[in-house]
């Protein structure tokens, strides 16, 4: 048993690079990203709390749909009221025309009343790829034990039209409410919709 354990050590280092995206119920991959002020923030810093991960890109009309209409702010404030941490992550590569400098991104969010616990820059795309994030917005929720509790879209109507928001089911609000109350998340995976994330190739 010990021998096997020792052999695993080098393999783990290699495997860490080539891991498939987690499914709901599996441990959420840890990451270390810099926030807008350059401070390193780790997902594991928030162990013991509910964490909402929001992949964002102000250049995407679908992100603007939720931000400009106030829906993202309402969702984020609702989550904060329930004790959840909100991390906005931007995995857009620096070379993309959509890339926004960290300070500008934070200002853009603040203008729209969205106040995440931290706005993290993932220009290398490692965190996004670790989670299998493919669209903006793409939402994940990590439970206090560090397991993935929700992965998918922000709501149920995939469109760029803000008029569709009131009639749609806000999956993130629903999941945060259920997780905070200790209940299992009823719709744990849904279809994420939006623009594709501009990963570094």
């Amino acid at each position, binding site marked *: *048993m*010990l021998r096997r*354990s*020792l052999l*695993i*050590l080098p393999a*783990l280092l290699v495997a860490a690079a080539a891991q*498939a*995206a*987690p*499914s*709901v*119920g599996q441990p959420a991959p840890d990451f270390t990203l810099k926030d807008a002020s350059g401070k390193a923030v780790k997902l594991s810093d928030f162990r*013991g*709390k*509910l964490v909402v991960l929001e992949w964002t890109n102000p*250049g*995407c*009309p*679908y992100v603007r749909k939720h931000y400009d209409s106030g829906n993202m702010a309402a969702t984020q404030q609702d989550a904060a009221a329930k*004790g959840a941490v909100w991390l906005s992550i931007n995995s857009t590569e620096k070379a*993309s*025309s*959509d890339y926004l400098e960290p300070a500008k991104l934070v200002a853009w969010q603040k203008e729209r009343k969205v106040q995440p616990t931290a706005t993290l820059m993932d220009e290398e795309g490692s965190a996004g*790829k670790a989670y*299998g994030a*493919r*669209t903006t917005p793409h939402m994940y929720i990590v*439970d*206090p*034990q560090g*397991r*993935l*509790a929700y*992965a*998918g879209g922000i709501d149920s109507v*995939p*469109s*760029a039209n803000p008029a569709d928001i009131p009639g749609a089911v806000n999956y993130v609000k629903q999941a945060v409410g259920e*997780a*905070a*109350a*200790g*209940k*299992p*998340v*009823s719709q*744990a*995976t*849904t*279809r*994420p*919709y*939006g*623009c*594709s*994330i*501009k*990963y570094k*190739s």
Partner: protein
Amino acid sequence: MTFLRLLAACTALAFLPWSALAQGTSSVKTDYVRAELLAHAPEGVQPGKPLWVGLQITHQPEWHTYWKNSGDSGLPTELTWTLPAGLVAGDIAWPVPKKIPIGNLANYGYEDTVLLPVPLTVTPAFQPSPLAGDVQIKLRANWLVCKKECIPEQGEFALKLPVRGTTALHAQAFEDAFARQPKPVMSQKTGIVPESTARVDEGALAVTVQGLPVALRGKTLEFFPETGEVIDNGARWTQAWNGAAWTARIPLSAQRSASPDVMPVVLASAGEGWRTELRVLGAWPPVAAAPAAVSPALEQALRENAASPSLPASSSIGLLAALLGALVGGLILNLMPCVFPVLAIKVVGFTRHADDRRGHRIGGLAYTAGVVVSFAALGGLMLALRAAGEQLGWGFQLQSPAVVASLAALFTLIALNFAGVFEFRSLLPSSVATLEAKHPVLNSFLTGVLAVAVASPCTAPFMGASLGLAISLPAWEALAIFIVLGLGMALPYLLASWVPAIAKRLPRPGPWMETFRRLMAFPMFATVAWLVWVLGQQSGIDGAGALLALLVALSMVVWALTLRGRTRVAIAALALAGFAALAWTAGGAITRSLPAQTLAAAEGRWQPWAPGRVDELLAAGQPVFVDFTAAWCVTCQYNKKTTLADREVLADFDAGRYALLRADWTRRDPAITAALAQLGRNGVPVYVVYRPGRPPVVLSEILGVQEVRAALAPPPL
């Protein structure tokens, strides 16, 4: 004159586009696409005759719109018709798409020019006015056009469709669009072709498509699923032809949100496509809703509790106190039946060279070094394994039946040696034996290592929880505790070797030494008996029986090697053969684990622990008492037979309606290791009292009746 005519013409011209706008033009141009509404009625607008309308999109180079299933991102083009009464629009007849990869994501869509045709059905309700020459078809279309950025666009279109006469201006475009339609595969209804299926198989879809044209056999096909959110669109997949059937293995998405029973798919080669509906076999793995999460408040309380444990050797008292505890623990180790014989024999060895004080001193230091280094190595190994993610707690060595069996073999050998069945000198070649004599320092060092090896099974039973706590401290503090533990263990021998008075107190060498040595064999045999019992708990009576048989065979082998001459060769060969045969046949029983039910069987009041069970019971309002235990943990067994069997304690359990859960850690169980880690513990025993709405209370290792009763007492209001 000319000027007036020009003015009139300009005015007329000026008005035209406005009126067209008021009704919607049949074509919309944006920066990225030119979209046009077209109609096709080659045989006039009559019931039963083909009637098509469609949106033709001409993209700018490198821009694309999306197919029915857009893939990893994007949105399909949406058409909303406003038709005269009696005309009914069908679904878009999507042409075969193109796969558009972006990094390790992929979308499905169209570039260049595509026409999305929609069939119109003329129902009896269609009664155009006899005076009207045409009817108006209106369309509102939404599409998402992307290159790198994405721009959602919308267009309002209007078209006048003549009801008399034919409309075939764009016949070519429509014919091309029909040619790009996927054709149905040879249908099962003809009776010969088996159905096409998709089997859910361990994170992938095993697809088999039947009825494809013969001309396609051997060719590489493209695969387009019409149902989104099932497969991983960007992943590599494999395909192969199996005679007439095309097969493929396509990975599923890790965050799949659709679980269809039937999956329509399109297969394509060189722009031509074939469509079939796959029947899904096998069950979709449940999209696990995360198990009932511990509410953040409770989780916070758990963390606070873990930070201030109530164990005597707790880190809240301070590192110094923990080190003192480790020193005392090490001293006590010498009294364990595992270690005592080894120590005693070594000390008695002083009588042989009573005057060689310098030799004794060096020997003592070497032994101490051996012990300390081994303990540090053991601690370091555990820390490294934990850092690598292995779910280990202290006592991990006893959770593996193979390790338990090996330890039992080791102890048997040592016991046989003490009993005089064999001497190391007679077994080892003379060169090694003289090595032993020439390097007494090395000999002492190795004795120290051996002492730690034999001590380890005894640490877990008596010091499991305390050492487990040590592992959860920062690495340097944990190592310091292990080193001090080693010092404590080596201390008696070190004192004996340095203080001449002790050596002088020992009686003169004599035959009593032999008797003493033989006597020491029995504690070792007793340890073997205990290890066999532990194995029995892990692998059942068959495992324990197999181990005993192997130990008997091992003893015979060892004895046979002490013989001389031809008898030695003969009997040793026989013994070895017997041992090998036994190991081959019965060895498996040792490592075979008992079915989980046997281990987790409810014993009277006690139910087996399961992950999430505590939360369930708390949510139902019932308080819970959890006993984390293991068969090889002597403290656990002691508590079980004394405090936990005490009448008053049991009465308190009943009065409080406590649910009693037992978490058995005899064999490795990552769920239990994780639960222990959540409580800030790493070894057993651990006793926890859970009450709804309050943080859990962890009780001490050696459970006292008063302590338990105090913890169970209802809190003051």
